[in-house]
């Protein structure tokens, strides 16, 4: 098939992107905590909790499926 090395699993890419998103959204949630945006149910700080979940999920996938030396 002529592959150039072992293909990285798709789960690794999922992990990287979700980690990046989780970081951005978590930071946004922290910054806006004192003054939540003018949306319904903003008092529950969904950006903070959502960012935390994304960061956790992304971190798990990125670490679990990271490239390893054979």
């Amino acid at each position, binding site marked *: 098939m002529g*592959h150039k090395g072992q293909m990285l699993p798709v789960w690794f890419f999922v992990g990287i992107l979700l980690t*990046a*998103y989780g970081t951005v959204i978590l930071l946004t949630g922290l910054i*806006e905590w004192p003054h*939540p945006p003018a*949306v319904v149910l903003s008092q529950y700080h969904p*950006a903070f909790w*959502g960012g935390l979940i994304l960061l956790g999920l992304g971190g798990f996938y990125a670490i679990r499926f990271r490239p390893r030396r054979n």
Partner: protein
Amino acid sequence: MTAIPLIAAGLSPDGSTRLISLHFPDILIIVLYFVAVLGIGFYLKRYANTSNDFFLAGREMSAWVAGLSFLSANLGALELMGWAAATYQYGILAAHFYWIAAFPAMVILALVMMPFYYISQTHSVPGYLRLRYGEATRALSGISFAFMTVLMSGINMYAMALVMEVVLGWNLHFSIWVSSITVAVYVALGGLFSAIFNEVLQFFLIWLGALVIPVLGMIEVGGWKGLVARVDERVHSTAYVHLWSTLGTFSGNPMGVHWTGIVFGLGGVIACGYWTTDFLVVQRAMAARDLRSAQLAPIIASYFKMIVPVIIILPGLLAIAVLPYKLVPATMVQTGQHSYNEVLPLMLARYCGPGLLGLGVTALIAGFMSGMAGNVSAFATVWTYDIYQPYIRKNESDAHYLRMGRWCTLLGVFISIATAYFVTEFRSIMDYMQALVSFFIAPLFGTVLLGMLWKRTTSKGGFWGLLTGTVSSILMYALVKVNPDWLRYIALSPNAKPMAEDLYRALWSCLLCVLVTVVVSLFTEPKPPEQLVGLVRGLTNIPREKNLPLVRRPIFWAAGVAILFGVIQWIFW
């Protein structure tokens, strides 16, 4: 061409009707998505070195990857926006398009049809038809599939551009060109590898981005009981929250359909036709590493399909309950009003602040682009293997067909761009898809199924059955357009709505296809049995799995989703 001016008429020239403005975190999230998908495409180019790599991902995908991409290839613009819109219009009946229209067909594909697709080692559904019936049937199916798939790709693009225009105030044409060129680049680079990787990525984004709405929405309305009470208060009918109990009569439900249309038209013909013969989704299962993985892929997808209504149907119901204004059909939008198609963006704007909004918008973009990528990669495969190779340039090298695959990926995208500018006057996006499905897919299901299960089906029978079914569907559609009174005959009731008409038209065209196939087959000569080995029941050695533990057998997991389906129908009866 007619829909764009109508929609634009609802917007003020300075774009002040945009729903929300993006902030820096939202834009960063969107930009990161485009960087990621392009980066994945460039990374995977090194692995797409043969036509088998490019068109079938080397047939080395695991069951989970094949299954998630099988599901995501279908989670496009039509799913995200169209079904939320349809739910707002028809209530929970729209969920039938996720439950009865998914589980039985996916299981039939897995257990009945995938062995023949996989064992025959065909590269596409038209490829199977060539082996089973001959060139004429392959050409008819291949050309009609290619035509349909670029139309569907254009619809995906249009729907995404519409969302971007309404939500963000982005110019319609800018959105079409930026998204389509991005898809063109990553699919042309990595082929099906790239399309599948990005579909798995999009699966996560769609779920995580869209989940905000049902979670916060259910908190706002106070759970399911609160939702039901508010919907009843708004529409003065409990029909919007019952799945089956209102289908005893045509006039007793918002969709104007009888349960026979749902069960036989939708669950029986349209669903089976789509999930078992639409090469866009079947291609993902064919890319699996072995037969067992190919069979498990649609079964895995069916489990997720059972819960997709949480992020698509539930937001539509929540919109009925919480939005302070009524939505209207797209063709009736006036200044200050919103159409059914804007349900999902409106709900995102309601609950999502900076960051989460960017994730939600990216989920929509991802859904639309995966739909387009799926159509384009399927088009490239069918064009190269089923039209270009057999009829235009035979016996070329593998490298030549690989180059053709990359070029026609780009061609497919540009044709899709052209079709995006020809959107019709249908009341909702899903009506458009259903009409297309009924033209081509419903009769094709009859042709493929008969070919796989009945040795006596002949080449002439298959061809004439498929042609008759397709033409009859187009004629029925045209008949109702010219004289709406014909609706009462085709859809069995003068109270039938357009979506119901599509279901019955698909049913009749499939039945007609089967009838003609059987009759013509009985009067023509079948292929000798040695030419049908691996293609039809009774002449195919399907590996048995008696030595496998029960939990590793596809039939075990198929039984599980059947039980889940039954429980869901009972809960929402």
